[in-house]
Each structure stands twice: as C-alpha cells, then as structure tokens.
C-alpha cells in the first residue's frame, strides 16, 4: 500500500507534442493518499484510461514523474510496481480452470502453495464462484469471466494499489451492486489504495471517498460527492454529475446581480464586474416553478420518475430542467422560475468563480 504522487505528469500518444491539444493527458500534479478509494470519472476519451495505464506502468508518460510513497517508479515495470489492475473486458486464461486463473498471480510470484489454496478459496467465495472453481474458464459467461478478472485483481494482498478500468461494464445490474459493495467492503477491510475508472456517476459516487472528474485530458475537480454536487468547479462537472445535470445559463454579472436576457437574478455573493464568457449554474433541484416571479419559461414536458418529477422547459430558446416534488402539481399557469439564491454558482470561461460575501 502506498501513497501515489503524480508530479508534473503529462502524456501524448504521438512523439514531439507541440500544443496543449496534442496531449491526451494534460499536465497534472496530484497525490493519491494511501488507502483511499478514488473514482476517476469522465466521458469516453477524456484520458482516464491513459492516466490509469500510466499509474500501472503499462504506459510510459511523455513527461513527469510518478512516486510510490517517496520512491520514483516512473521507469519501473508493472511487475516492480506491484499493482493489480482489472480491465473493462474480461481477461481470463481460457485453458485454465477458474482456480488456476485465480492462483496465477500468486504462483507467478512464488507464493507458498498452502497459502495460495486458502487464498483462492477465500476469493472464490467473495466473487460467488466457489462451486465453479474447478471448471474451465473457457465456457463461462462474460460476467462470470469478469468476476474471475476481478478475483485475480484482488487475490494479492500486498499490492500497492488496485486499479479498475470500468470493470463492471459487462456485468448485469443486480450483480453490479453486489460486486461494488464487495469492493467497498474489501477496501474497508484491507485499506488498499483503489482507483476506479468509470463513466457512470452513480458508480463513482457510491464507490469512492473522493471523485476525480476528468474532462478533455484534464482533471477538472477532485472532491467528495457533496463537493461535486454543491460546488462544481467547472461547468462540465455540473453537467456531468447530477441527474439531470446542472443548468448553465449565459448571464451578465455585475456585483451581486446576474442579468439573464434583461431580467435580474439575485446572487448570494458579490463578484464585481466579470470579463469573458460568464454564466450562472443552477442545479435542477434548486429551481422552482412559479406563477409569475422570475424568468419566463415554456414547459414542454413533465417526466414522472417516481421519487420526483423532472420538468423539461425552455428558457429563452435554451433547455432548462427543473426538479419538482412528487406531490407538487404542475399547472399550466406556472410560466416562470426562480432560483434558490444561495445555490446559484457563477462561472467565468467554464470555471467556477467564488464571490465575496456581500
């Protein structure tokens, strides 16, 4: 187990990168604390798998250093880093039995046979495959194979970190919950540093202590699920986290007032006069439909999703989502919206701007 430090790290898949756009992973400094569970969240192609492969040593970064505790491992092989990684698609050794598959990493490291037998049994129970241990891996279903991959990732107790690259993509939903819960309990039990790559926010928010949100090769925010919800540092985070995501509305900001198409929206803090692309971000949870106050909207559709209603509406030609309580009735005369003032965030060129308390 180790603390992992990324120092000045960046990666480009082509030699001689010139502009920042050439980098699949833009310059990054970060410390992954020992024993924490992280989720690496972002849409496809944002560089999260690249980052993961650099940490595990499958990929060598174009620049920067990686330190495990205080040892520089940038040039070390995957084996020397002593890391476990589980991939998106199941990787099993077809010709081996399930048992031999699980034992493989331990055997390669020359562990004691008695210990291997006992440990494999334990892992077999954890992934719910005790009955199939002596079956060949070849004929199994995709999710059984992925469970083997997970098991193989967890079989070594002394790894520096456990990395997961969207491991539950091929697993069916009820098993997903179960495996994720097991991963969490495993984390509590052994305190491995875990990094879990996913594009599924639910998965990220339920699994991790800290979520790292990536966008376009850059880490845009690292925080607890609450922080990501309340104070998204970047409009992408606001939009990506939450269901539906945050509403981002172009506005002119002056002092503690935002102006949207000529209509004043009060803000909790003062911002002075802001230059650049200015927007306000409000989560659908903090938008209320009214019969006359605030900004004019045109309601187009109401979706009842059980616990609440999602109102899809139009604000000056842009989409806006509003979350209403299940028991709140939506009437045709509700043509305006107001915001919960303390929950309105201000963004300049997509980045959060914090204001002074007025």
């Amino acid at each position, binding site marked *: 187990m180790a603390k992992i430090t990324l120092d000045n790290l960046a990666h480009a898949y082509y030699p001689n990168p010139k502009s920042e756009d050439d980098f699949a992973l833009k310059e990054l400094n970060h410390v992954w604390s020992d024993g924490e569970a992280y989720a690496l969240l972002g849409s496809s192609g944002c560089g999260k798998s690249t980052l993961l492969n650099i940490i595990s040593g499958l990929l060598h970064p174009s620049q920067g250093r990686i330190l495990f505790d205080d040892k520089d491992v940038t040039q070390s*092989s995957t084996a020397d880093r002593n*890391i476990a990684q589980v991939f998106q*698609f199941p990787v099993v*050794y077809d010709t081996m039995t399930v048992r031999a598959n699980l034992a493989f990493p331990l055997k390669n490291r020359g562990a004691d046979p008695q210990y291997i037998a006992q440990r494999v049994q334990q892992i077999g129970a954890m992934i719910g495959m005790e009955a199939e241990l002596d079956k060949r891996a*070849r004929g199994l279903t995709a999710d059984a194979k992925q469970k083997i991959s997970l098991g193989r990732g967890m079989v070594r107790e002394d790894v520096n970190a456990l990395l997961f690259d969207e491991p539950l993509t091929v697993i069916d939903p009820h098993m997903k919950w179960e495996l994720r819960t097991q991963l969490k309990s495993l984390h509590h039990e052994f305190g491995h540093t875990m990094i879990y790559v996913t594009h599924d926010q639910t998965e990220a928010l339920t699994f991790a202590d800290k979520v790292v949100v990536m966008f376009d090769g850059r880490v845009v925010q690292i925080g607890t699920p609450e922080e990501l919800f309340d104070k998204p540092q970047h409009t992408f985070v606001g939009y990506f986290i939450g269901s539906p995501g945050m509403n981002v509305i172009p506005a002119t900001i002056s002092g503690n007032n935002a102006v949207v198409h000529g209509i004043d929206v009060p803000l909790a803090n003062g911002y002075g006069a802001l230059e650049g692309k200015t927007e306000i971000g409000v989560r659908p949870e903090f938008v209320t439909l009214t019969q006359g106050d605030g900004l004019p909207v045109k309601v187009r559709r109401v979706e009842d999703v059980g616990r609440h209603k999602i109102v899809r509406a139009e604000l000056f030609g842009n989409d806006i989502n509003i979350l209403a309580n299940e028991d709140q009735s939506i009437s045709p005369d509700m043509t305006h919206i107001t915001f919960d003032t303390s929950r309105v965030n201000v963004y300049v060129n997509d980045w959060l701007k914090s204001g002074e308390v007025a």
Partner: protein
Amino acid sequence: MEKTINQKAWFLVLPVLVLVAFSAVIPLMTVVNYSVQDTFGQNQFFWAGLEWFDEMLHSERMWDALGRQLMFSAIILTIQIPLGVFVALNMPKSGFWSSFCLVVMSLPLLIPWNVVGTIWQIFGRVDIGLLGYSLDALGISYNYTQNTFAAWVTIIIMDVWHWTSLVALLAFAGLKSIPDAYYQAAKIDQASRWAIFRYIELPKMMGVLMIAILLRFMDSFMIYTEPFVVTGGGPGNATTLLSIDLVKMALGQFDLGPAAAFSIMYYLVILLISWVFYTVMINLDKREG
C-alpha cells in the same frame, strides 16, 4: 404465402452441375472404371473386380511409398509448425517493418512448384550450385543424386523454405487478433514469457494453427512436382513419395488398373485424414463457445 411450384428453377443449378461433372465427377469415375478392369492393349477391357485393390494392398512398393510419404509429412510438420509460430512471434507487430516482413515472407508462396524445384535442383548441384559447391569446398560430402540422406535433407529444406511462410502468416494473423488487454493483464499478473505463450498466445492461435496443420498436411501428402524436379524420386527409390510412385505406375509403366486402385485409396486416405482434422477442429470450436 403459398409456394409456387416451378421446376424450371432446376435449370439454374445446371451450369454448376455440368462444371462439377466435367471437372470432378467424370474424371473420378473414369479412374473408378479403370480400377476394376484389366486391359491387354487395343483398347479392350476385361472385368477384374477388386483384384487390383487386393494387389495394391499387398504390394510392398506401395507400403514403402506410403511409409516414406508419412515420414516426409511428419518431418515437415514438426519443423514448419513450430518454426512458423516462432517466426510469427518474433515479427514486428506493426509499422513499416511488419508490412515488409509480410511481403518478403509471401514471396516463396508465389513461386510455382516447378520453379521452386528447379531453383533447389541447381542450388544443390555440386558442380555449379552455390550450396552444393560450397559444401563440397568445405569438405562436406553432399550429393543429393547419390546420397539418400542428402536427398532427404534437400527436399525437406526446400519444402520448409517454400511453405513455412504460410504457417507464419496464419499464426501471425492469430496473434494479431489477441486484444492488448490480455498482454497487459499478463504483465500485471507477472506472467513469464513462456506463460504468456502457453496460456494466452497458444490457446488463441489454436484455431488458425489447426487450419495450418491441415493445409500443410494435405499439401505435403500430395506433393509431387518439387521432389520430382530435384531428385526424380531417387537415389533408387529413396525419395519416391506416393504421387511420384503413382505417376511412375500410371504413365511410366502404363499400369492403368493398379494405378487407378492406388489413386482411389490415396484419395480415400486424404479424405479420411481431412475429415478427422475437421471433426477435431469443430469440437475445439464448440468447447471454445
């Protein structure tokens, strides 16, 4: 919908029937016809029943040729399959050199059998051939026209030169289809090079390797032109393989009856072995799924 009955549709398969009849069925039936008759010339034939088959099954000459043939196929398979796999494993996986290797390796496959035979026939000659002359100059006794061992070595090396590329190309295709994640997982699991080969590459190549073995077996079992051009079956009968013997019998001695019986049994053996291979392959596939 009701089915319309239209027997005219049969005419559509007619061209294929005619083609197959002339290219395969009729020639084969001619052979069957010869195998059960005897002739003393003047185009007069007499019914002989299964006599020729009986004679052939008890002919030492045929069993010897079959023995040589099996030995030849066994030797070239034991060399070409591992060698082809080895070459494929060591080829560059992508980029210019990968394409370069593919092209260079395909070259022997494009050379006609006859030309391959001629190349090696000259290459091995002690008086003017580069190989033969050099070996002779080094004091190594090498003469494929007189020495059985030298003759065998020559035709085996020739076949290896001609056909190993095919195995390598097939194995390479098999290797290329293995997703990167397998190699990455193996690295993480600290698998040795041998373990990667044994547990990832070999199982994934099994399908194409079976095809390679089948193709190389059938082809080597039917080989004629190359050894015929190089050694003519000699010295003595040392390199007289089945088809060389067959041609000698049918065209050299004009023993149509025995040669026809020989051909049919030859054909059945190939059919049988191919069927066994095919069945094994299908079963492998089933286990895969």
